[in-house]
Structure formats: C-alpha cells, structure tokens
C-alpha cells in the first residue's frame, strides 16, 4: 500500500461522522435571521407606502389645488419599485452555493461588482428622486400662489422648507456615502481575493 493510499485510508476512517442529536436550534436561528431581514425591508417599504398613501389621499381630496404632491407620490413609487426590483434581482442573481466552485466564484465577483455599482448609483436612484419629490411641489405651490401675497411673505417659507430638505437629504447622502466607503473597502479586498481565487482555480496546475 502506497503512502498516499494510507493517507486516504486514515482520512476516510477518521472519527467525525457521528450525527448530532437535533437541528431544531439551528433551524430556529435561520428562521429568525430570515425574519429579521424580511421585517427590516418590510418596515422601510411600509413607511414609504404609508406616506405615499396618505399623500395620495390628501392630494385627491382637492386634486385641482394639491396636484403637485403627486410628484412626491411618483418619486415614492419609484423608490419602492426600486427596492423591490433589487430584492428580486438579488434573489434571482445571487451566487448559488451549490454551483461548481469556479462558477460560484464568477457569480460572486459579478455580485460584488453589481453591489458596488448599485452603491455608486444610490444618490441618483434613491436620494435624488425622493429629494425632487419633496422639493418640487413647494416650488409649484409658490408659483401658484405668487401675486396673491407679498413676495417676501411667500418666498420666506419656501426658502425655509427647501433649506430644511436640502440639509436633510445632504445629511442622508453623506451618511450613506460614509457607509458605502466603509463597505466598499471590504468589498474591494474581497473582490481581489475572489479574483486571485479565480486565477488559482483556472490555473491550478501553476
């Protein structure tokens, strides 16, 4: 018997195949993790749906006067749609763990590159639509009302409201950018590791 045969024999006879007694706790933990992820998304979406629904209700009470708020509702629908689309896309295109190793690595690379691209786009896809939805209607209201009151009396509230929105959305953007920079640092490292792994799997004989 060759040395390698002895290795195989020893390896295959090692004592580690006894069954654990129950898997209930693990399954509970997995279910809990899934529920947490689901409810986090459900919370964000329900807040957006709730705000969008009440704005629609308010708008339709006097559509002739309140129609500019439909711009907000449209931006709200856009963001909800975008979140749901991303959830669907991620589930559909997520790297599958039962793929061959090389295919899994390729999928993982694509997944990370997509997430990095998505982060770069968050300003245009999340923040700008919501900011426009909040900031454009007051301008329309100002335009519709101007001439009925002195300019200073109608311009001051507009500037205050727009200033608050600019401050809030700038803050949100900066916080998101900070989070993305931190995440992208890790992702870049992971991407490098994945690319090295792909190389070494493709040229394992080297």
């Amino acid at each position: 018997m060759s040395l390698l045969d002895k290795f195989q024999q020893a390896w295959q006879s090692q004592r580690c195949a006894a069954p654990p007694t129950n898997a209930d706790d693990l399954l509970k933990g997995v279910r809990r993790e899934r529920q947490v992820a689901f409810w986090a998304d459900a919370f964000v979406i329900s807040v957006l749906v709730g705000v969008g629904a009440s704005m629609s209700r308010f708008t339709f009470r006097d559509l002739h006067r309140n129609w500019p708020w439909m711009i907000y509702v449209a931006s709200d629908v856009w963001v909800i749609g975008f979140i749901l689309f991303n959830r669907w896309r991620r589930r559909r295109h997520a790297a599958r763990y039962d793929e061959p190793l090389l295919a899994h690595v390729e999928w993982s690379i694509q997944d990370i590159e997509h997430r990095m691209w998505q982060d770069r786009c968050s300003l245009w896809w999340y923040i700008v639509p919501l900011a426009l939805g909040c900031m454009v209607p007051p301008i329309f209201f100002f335009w519709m009302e101007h001439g009925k009151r002195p300019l200073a009396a109608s311009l001051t509230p507009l500037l205050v409201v727009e200033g608050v929105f600019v401050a809030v959305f700038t803050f949100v953007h900066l916080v998101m950018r900070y989070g993305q920079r931190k995440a992208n640092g890790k992702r870049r490292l992971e991407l490098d590791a994945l690319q090295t792994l792909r190389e070494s799997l493709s040229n394992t004989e080297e």
Partner: protein
Amino acid sequence: MGIADHERRFRHWLSEHTGLLVKVVRSFAEAPADQDDLFQEILLQVWQSLPNFRDDSKPTTWLYRVALNTALAWKRGEKKRRSRHGSLSIADVAASSDVAAPPDTSLEAQRNDRIVEQLYAAIRALPPAKRALVVLYLDGFTYREIADVVGISENNVGVTLNRIKKDLAAAVKDDGQ
C-alpha cells in the same frame, strides 16, 4: 420541495453526512471558535441551498460543493460570528460522537489519528483552491467527480493533484518521523 420535506432531508443529511462537513471545516479553520463559526455557516448555506437540490447529483457531491464554496467565502473574509447559543457546534458533534462510539485506543487507531492531524496541518498550509482538491481526493472522489465539484477540467485536476500529492507526502512523512 415542501417545507416538511426540506426539513426532513436537512435533518437526514445532517445525521448521515456530518463527517463530510467536519472534514471541510477542519481543513479550512484551525481554532475551535473559527471551526464552530464555519460549521454554523455551512449548515446555514446547506439549509438555504437545499430547495435547489435536484436528484441528478449525489448528496455527497452536492454537500461538498456547498461546504467548499462556503469555506472559500468564509476564508476570504466574510466571517460572521454566529452566536453559539442555541446552535450546533463542532463541540456538540464531538460530544454526540463520544456518546455514540467510545474512543478507539488501539495502536492502529492512534497512528491513523496522528496521520489525520498531520494531513489537516498540511492541508491548511495550502492555498484555498488546492485545499478543496485535496479534501475531495482524500475522500476518495475520482478526478471526474472532483472536476465536477470544482468546475475545472479533469486534466487540470490530475496535473494539480499530482504535484500536491508529492508535497503532501513529503510534509506528512517529514512530520511523522
């Protein structure tokens, strides 16, 4: 696959093939805490990937794919510390193993244990992609099956393994002397 079938299959495989998972864990993680962490991660991925299982592949081949992919992902830094409370761990497996079968103290068994420990040490010193090949080879997979799990050509597997086998023989023999 219904949720009941899903759970039944998961529990069945867990009782049948834990050894396979433990081998992968010990080949990729050395510290007991890391082993527990990786073991949890693999079980989680097995559970989540199970609905994708089609009967056209052997459960062991499928489990190896999931376990090795998870180990490679874990290795490159996506380490998530899972709470050990209420979860299965390597220690649990070892404990149940001790209950199920008293330790074999024969000289032959002790020699085997020593070889296995040296093999694990030698495997952990290899680059991650090569570890996967060696684990499959040691478990008796053919080159065709290894190529199928890893997704590279059979020829590539053969060339790579020939080189690794020599390194492995040298490392384990040297350590064993």
